[in-house]
């Protein structure tokens, strides 16, 4: 049984120009000890999914439909007090931008103990003791509790944030772009740390990134988002070996491997659509080189393709227009 089961989630932002359909009918599951990669370009709604899972949407953002089942309990209908018990203790998040996510005026140790004290009834001393253990777990020296964020390097800050996210033993960890803004070597160090923690603590993980290579490297499953919808999902190996959706194919082609022979990098023509007034039918059709008339009118459903656990939302792959 999956630990997290998201069903037909819809999160819209109301703005002066109209409502932005940032997440529009997204479903996925994550099992214990499994890492799901959520990939897509900026503005495709991947961060909104994360904020919806934590129920920390900014003003104007609202979950308008669907269910988020965490251990079989729908957390969309919980009130703020009940939600507080879930946050950090069951689901926690590592925010985007390691450089700026810590408060510059407080010592690292105090910021982590604050997270513990907010969610659990323990003494300050016990919380500090646990903080030191956490820092060791993420590969920082315990004496770093006394450091202010500016005394730490980018990689150390990211480790500190990971320690903070793990402070109350969550079962599900969401990481929003954990590698961006870090140099490649440091990024590789941070990613191996996260993999190691996932194994050690049997964590379920959702890794949000625009970088497909990071997902190929660290995740078991992947869901590709485009314009507020999941267009393809399945096993990492299947999707990278045999991407079915034209958008996934384009995205995989846009990530050259350092090991592959030199070639021109391919791209996807056009721009992602405006989510206030998304295109009719398949949202990718204006940029798709295979689009047929049906694609312009009818929205394809995410359907299972082939024997493996691979799902795609494309008329040409799984729907009425699929080739025999």
């Amino acid at each position: 049984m999956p630990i997290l089961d998201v069903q037909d989630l819809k999160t819209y932002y109301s703005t002066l120009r109209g409502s932005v359909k940032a997440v529009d009918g997204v479903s996925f599951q994550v099992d214990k000890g499994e890492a799901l990669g959520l990939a897509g370009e900026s503005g495709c709604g991947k961060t909104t999914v994360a904020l919806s899972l934590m129920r920390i949407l900014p003003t104007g953002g609202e979950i308008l439909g669907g269910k988020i089942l965490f251990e079989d309990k729908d957390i969309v209908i919980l009130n703020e007090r009940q939600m507080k018990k879930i946050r950090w203790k069951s689901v926690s998040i590592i925010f985007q931008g390691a450089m700026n996510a810590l408060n510059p005026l407080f010592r690292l140790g105090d910021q982590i103990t604050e997270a513990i004290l907010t969610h659990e009834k323990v003494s300050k001393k016990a919380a500090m003791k646990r903080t030191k253990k956490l820092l060791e777990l993420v590969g920082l020296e315990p004496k770093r509790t006394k450091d202010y964020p500016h005394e730490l390097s980018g990689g150390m800050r990211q480790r500190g944030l990971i320690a903070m996210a793990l402070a109350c033993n969550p079962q599900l960890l969401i990481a929003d772009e954990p590698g961006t803004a870090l140099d490649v070597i440091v990024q590789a160090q941070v990613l191996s740390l996260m993999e190691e923690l996932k194994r050690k603590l049997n964590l379920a993980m959702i890794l949000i990134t625009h970088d497909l290579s990071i997902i190929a490297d660290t995740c078991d499953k992947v869901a590709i988002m485009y314009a507020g919808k999941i267009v393809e999902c399945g096993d990492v190996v299947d999707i990278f070996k045999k991407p079915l959706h034209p958008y996934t194919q384009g995205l995989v082609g846009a990530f050259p491997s350092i090991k592959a022979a030199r070639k021109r990098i391919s791209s996807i023509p056009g721009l992602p659509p405006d989510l206030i007034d998304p295109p009719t039918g398949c949202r990718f059709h204006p940029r798709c080189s295979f689009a047929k008339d049906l694609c312009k009118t009818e929205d394809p459903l995410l359907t299972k393709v082939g024997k493996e656990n691979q799902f795609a939302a494309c008329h040409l792959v799984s729907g009425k227009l699929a080739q025999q």
Partner: protein
Amino acid sequence: MTENTAINVIELKKWFSVRKGFLTTVFSREQLFLRAVDQISFDIKVGEVFGLAGESGSGKTTTGRLLLKLIKPTSGKIYFKGQDITDLSEKELKPLRRKMQIVFQDPYESMNPRMTIRDIVAEGLGTQKIATTEKEMDEKVVDILKDVELVPPEEFLLRYPHELSGGQRQRVAVARAFVLRPEFIVADEPVSMLDVSIRAEILNLMLDFVEKFNVSFLYITHDVALARHMCDRVAIMYLGKIMEMGATESIVYEPLHPYTQALIAAVPVPDPTSKRTRLPVKGEIPSPVNLPPGCRFHTRCPIADENCRQKEPKFIEVGKQHFVACHKVAG
């Protein structure tokens, strides 16, 4: 130096002096320097795509700006097509500016928000007196906008930068640089702010120009995977020094310097069946103000010994056009 060389750099150095607090100035006379670029030498051939790769703080951007004389070098020589441009005055440089152009990293910050696209692209034409009449300028601007695929150009001429997407803005930046028909282009992380699906279009656009006009191209990037597909030759920089330089193929497949090896091993591969090798390199890049003695990489190097901690390695040619600065490889 042959006729085939567009840019030649000899022992180029740029040290920035570091401002200290009042008390430290009173009690110590020692002047601190940030050694952004510290004695590097390389050349770029005509029509070649040369990559400068490294982590942030390695001095890649400073090098790019030095080559265009946007900042003054502390010492060393820069030759452009055989001409020493190191000590030229602004006035003497002006005719050369047309031949050497730059595309900046951030398309949101590199354009005057109060100028129209037409004026942004045409400004250089006027300054360099390439087009004298407004009509001639308009024609040239329309042509280049077509070349960078901002079509129909009439629709873009009177727009302002904020009305364009990041990718479109970067196309304007490319147009602004190439409208002058330069012979040498510096592109400083031109796509790092753009979305993946748009990235490739901009890079391919620039490569097309490079091939069409036989332009020499300096591509500055932190993304080694992109450099691998863009460049003919690459130089790997670390704390102001070039650690390794050679044909892209040999750097990627047979890296010799332990830093290059770590950098290439750290690049995630978009293939789930190939797992990352464990990284031997620890820690992060040290401050360029307090450089480690000896080889600057020794603090993170898995194979460093006493010699590396004391003596700085020389930059030595170890194979055909393959240079390395490491005691262990060429000691």
